[in-house]
C-alpha cells in the first residue's frame, strides 16, 4: 500500500481559505492529505509553526496567502514572501528536503488552483516518503 503523507496547511483567511472553501462549493475533488489551519493573514504564520509541525510529525507543510498586491491587510503576504526564503535556508541547514515546505499564492477565486496545488504537493511529498524528523528523533532516543 502506498504511503499517504500528512500535510499541514496554513491558509490566510481572506484569500486562500476562501479559495479552499470555493473548491468545496464547486465540488472540486482533491487529495485528502492536507489538514488546514486558518490564520487571518499569511503574515501571522510564524516559522515556529512550520518547525513545530515538522517536529510533531507532519510530512509536509503548505503555506498559502493572497497573491502579492492583493493582501487584505495590504502587505501581509510580502512579509511572508520575505520570511519564506530565510525559513527555507534554515530548513535546508537542518536537512529538510526542498519539497516538504511550500509557499503558494491562492486567491479567493482560485478553488481549482488550490486543488491543483494540494494534489501536486501530495504527489511530491508522497514521492519523498515519510518525514525523517520523527524517526530520527526516535532513533536518537533508541541509541542510548
Amino acid at each position, binding site marked *: 500500500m502506498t504511503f499517504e503523507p500528512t500535510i499541514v496547511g496554513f491558509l490566510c483567511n481572506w484569500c486562500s481559505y476562501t479559495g479552499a472553501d470555493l473548491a468545496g*462549493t464547486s465540488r472540486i475533488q482533491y487529495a*485528502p492529505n492536507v489538514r488546514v489551519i486558518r490564520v487571518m493573514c499569511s*503574515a501571522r504564520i510564524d516559522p515556529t509553526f512550520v518547525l513545530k509541525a515538522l517536529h510533531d510529525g507532519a510530512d509536509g507543510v503548505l503555506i498559502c496567502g493572497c497573491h502579492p498586491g492583493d493582501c487584505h*491587510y495590504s502587505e501581509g503576504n510580502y512579509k511572508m514572501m520575505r520570511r519564506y526564503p530565510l525559513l527555507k535556508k534554515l530548513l535546508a541547514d537542518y536537512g529538510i528536503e526542498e519539497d516538504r515546505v511550500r509557499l503558494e499564492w491562492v486567491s479567493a477565486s482560485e478553488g481549482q488552483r488550490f486543488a491543483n496545488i494540494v494534489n501536486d504537493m501530495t504527489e511530491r511529498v508522497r514521492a519523498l516518503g515519510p518525514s525523517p524528523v520523527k524517526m530520527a528523533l526516535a532513533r536518537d532516543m533508541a541509541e542510548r
Partner: protein
Amino acid sequence: MDELKIGVYICNCGTNIAKVVDCDAVVEASSSLPGVAVAQPYQYMCSNPGQEMIVADIKEHGLNRVVVAACSPRMHEPTFRKALQKAGVNPYFLEMANIREQCSWVHHDRDTATEKAMALTRAAVLRVARHEPLERRSVDMCPNTLVLGGGISGMSGALDLADAGGKVYIVERENHLGGNVARVDLTAPYLDSAHDMLTERITRVVEHPNIDVLLESEVESVEGFVGNFQARIRSKVDGDVSDQTVDVGSVIVATGYKEFDAGRITHYGYGKLPNVITSFELEKMLRGGRLETKEGGAPQYVAIVHCVGSRNLEFHTYCSRVCCMTALKYAHEIKAAVPDCYVSDIYIDMHAFGKGHEDFYRRSSEVKTLFLMYEKNDYPVIRKAGPKDDCEMLIEVNEKLSGETIEIPADLVVLMVGMEARDDAEEVARLVNISCDKDRWFIESHPKLDPVATTTDGIFIAGACQYPKDIPDSVAQARAAAARILARIARGKLEVDAVFAEVDEDRCSGCRICNQLCPYAAIEYDGEKRRSHVISALCKACGACVAACPSSAITARHFTDAQIFAQIEGVLA
C-alpha cells in the same frame, strides 16, 4: 478557570457531510478527547433546533466550550457565536471544524474523509480548550470630518456631510477652491460650462454654516484612530502662520492629481516649438475666448495628440481616462471658435466608455475631425514645416488604420497631458497612513467591493487621487465616502473587534522590529518606556507583528501561539 467542559457537535448537513463522512465515528472519536463532556451528531446544526440543542446542553451540562464541526466558519461562525452568547457563554469560546467545504465536498473516499474530519475536529477541541473570553468594545464616533482638498470631489463630499449636520473642515493648499476643474472651460460630453457648475458648489460651500474652509492651509499631522482623530492644520494666509488642531471622526482624502509635464516627452518639441501647447494651456485660451497661435493668427490646422505621458512604457502605463473625451470636446470648441479650421485627432485608442461618450465621439467625426491612429510607444514626431508648406508644423505619424506613414499639417498642436499622482502623494499617504500603488495613486480597501475606504479605518479617498477619474466619477466617489461616514455618525458609536494584537510590556525589549510592520500604524513606540504598544482600535489583527516579534512579547488574541500549536498537535495526533 474551572475544569473544561467541551461540547462537540458534528453536523450531518442533511447528507452534505454525512454521505461522505461517517459522522458517528467522528462523534465517537471526539468524545474520548480531553475535556469533552458532550459529543453528538445532528442533522442541521445551523437550524434553530440545532442551536437550541447547544444552548440546552450548555445549561444542562454546564458546558464552557463548544466545538461545531460543520461548514466553513466563514459561513456560520457568527450563528453559533450568537447561540453561545444566548446561553451566557462568551462567544469566543466557540471553535468550528470545517468538515464540509474542506472535507465532505472535496473528497469521495469515506475512510480518508472521515479520518480527516476526525483530525480537524480534534484540532478544534484542543484549540478551544485554550480559548480565552474576549469582549468587544465600542468607541465614540466624532461627528466632524476633515476633507483634504477643496476640489470638486472634496466640496461635494463636504456638502453632503454638512447638510446632514456634521462639522466639516476643508483644507485647501491653494488660495481658492475648485481644484483642477477651475482650470477647465466646458465639460465633455454635454459641453456645459465647468465654471457655472463650480460657482454653484463654491457658493454653497462658502456660505454653509457647518463648513470651515481653510485656504492656503496644510494638514501637518493626523493622530488617533477611527472616530477619534486629531488633525493639526497649519495655515499660511498671506505670510502669517497660524496653527490649529481639530477633532474629527473621519477623513476624506481628495487631493486630486497634477497634469503630466509635457516637457518630459522630447519628440513633441514642447517648450521648443512655440505652438505646441498642453491641453490646459488650450483650456486657458478657450476660457479667454480667443484661439490663436503664438504669432497671433487663427490656426488653419490644429492637431490634438492623445496619451501624452499615458499608456506608454516610458512614463505611465495606465490610461488617464478623461483625455479622449476632452480631446473630442476640443474638436468641437475649436470648430466653434474657428469654423474653417481642420482638426486632426491623433490617438492610440478612443476610449469612449462613459455615459453619452460614444454619441459624442460620433458627433465629433460628423464635424469632420480627422482621426489618426498611432501605435502605443510609437510616438508621432513633430517638426517645423518648410517655407513651401501652408502650415507651421508637420507631424509624422505611422498611421495604423491605413498602414501609411503620413505627415499631417498643424499650426497649433495640443498635447493631451495625462493625469499623474501629486508629487507629495507619498507624504500625504504617510500623513493619514494609507498606501500608494506603483504609480503613487492611493490604494483603496477593495478594488471592487470597497473602492472608497482605505486600509486605515476612518480614512476615505475620493476623486482623482485614487486613480484618474472624470467629474461624475469623482463626485460619485466623494458622495459615497460621505454616505459611509454619515452611516457611522448616525450610529454614534463604533464597535471595535475583540480580536487584536497586544504587547506584553513586561516582555517587550523595545527592539522595534514590529514598528514598521503594521499596515495600520497601530503600533506605537514609547521612547520614554522604550516599549512598543498596540492601539487596539487601529489593529486589524493580521498578526504580522505577532509572528515577527523575536521575543514573543506580542500575542494575537484568538490566534495565540498556544492555540495554533494546539491545532497543529490536533491535526497531527
